[in-house]
């Protein structure tokens, strides 16, 4: 009896380890966050310019502008610029759409999957100017913040980032 329960506990522990290892693997690729977890990235008080783009794999204008963010990420690699691509793909599309897309496009910027569905509770916390349409981009350094609910291109991104560096 004692042995049996020991074995059972062992099995439970082992499977728990495996599950966490598995999700650890996932989170290294693209972390999934609710808004509370994500929010700290909107309020970093340091001398880095944060370029936070809200997109989704199904959003055509978002996909069109992704190369501009990737270029920014590459060209400003040595400077204090942090590009974060925040995917608003549906939570259940992580495996089916988001992971394959990121792999196929070989995206190099930091990516976060924001899975908090109660958007009315957090859109204003990103920016009161945001209606909720994507693409949308927040660019900030400390308290110097700009919000853009429009499609970006590299030149526009560069000019905004330069004013904040």
């Amino acid at each position, binding site marked *: 009896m004692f042995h049996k329960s020991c074995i059972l506990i062992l099995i439970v522990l082992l499977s728990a380890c495996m599950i966490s290892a598995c999700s650890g693997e996932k989170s290294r690729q693209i972390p999934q966050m609710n808004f509370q977890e994500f929010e700290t990235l909107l309020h970093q008080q340091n001398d880095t310019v944060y370029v936070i783009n809200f997109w989704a794999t199904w*959003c055509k*204008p978002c996909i069109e502008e992704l190369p501009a963010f990737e270029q920014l990420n590459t060209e400003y690699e040595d400077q204090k610029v942090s590009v974060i691509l925040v995917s608003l793909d*549906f*939570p259940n599309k992580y495996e089916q759409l988001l992971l394959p897309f990121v792999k196929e496009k070989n995206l190099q910027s930091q990516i976060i999957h924001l899975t908090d*569905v109660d*958007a009315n509770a957090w859109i204003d916390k990103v920016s009161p100017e945001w*209606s*909720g349409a*994507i693409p949308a981009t927040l660019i900030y350094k400390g308290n110097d913040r700009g919000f853009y609910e429009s499609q970006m291109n590299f030149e526009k991104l560069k000019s905004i980032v330069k004013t904040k560096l």
Partner: protein
Amino acid sequence: MKKLTLLTTVILLAGLTFAQTGYKVGDKASDFELKNVDGKMVSMADYPDAKGFILIFTCNHCPYSKAYEDRIIELDNTFKSKGYPVIAINPNDPAIQPEDSFEEMKIRAKEKGFTFPYLFDDGQKVFPVYGASRTPHVFIVNKEHGEYIIRYIGAIDNNHTDAEAADKRYVQDAVNALIEGGVPNPEFTKAIGCSIK
């Protein structure tokens, strides 16, 4: 003096920009005349017995719109008989988004068995007047003393992925409030959606 003129100009321009962002809750809405998927033109004036309307800017291609299709049908089924029918309007330019062409709208309406008009904002003249910015984007219009008054702007509910899991059903609650002679609370919400193209 120059500074003052500049300031006035800035204020005027800011006012203009603000005015262009569309209706706010409490504003009078203007009627429209748009082509339905059955080929007939539809206006709010065609519904003399309606107490108001659930106007929804939505489209074919957007995953958020798709996720809400069944819920939009349900809203129409619930509220048409109570005087608040759904009118859906596709605001997208098919030249940019071919999946949202009038022909594709007809196909989608038939496939899903839409119980409400699905109108095409040909030339994109109506959505900017209302200030719709995304799909789906709801404007609840209440008929008051012969005028169309906007009483709610925003999302359908607070969970686009799972209707059952939504614990705030904004549109349903707003229309029920109007039926009971009250005002919606909240009267304005936001949601993620596809930008209007």
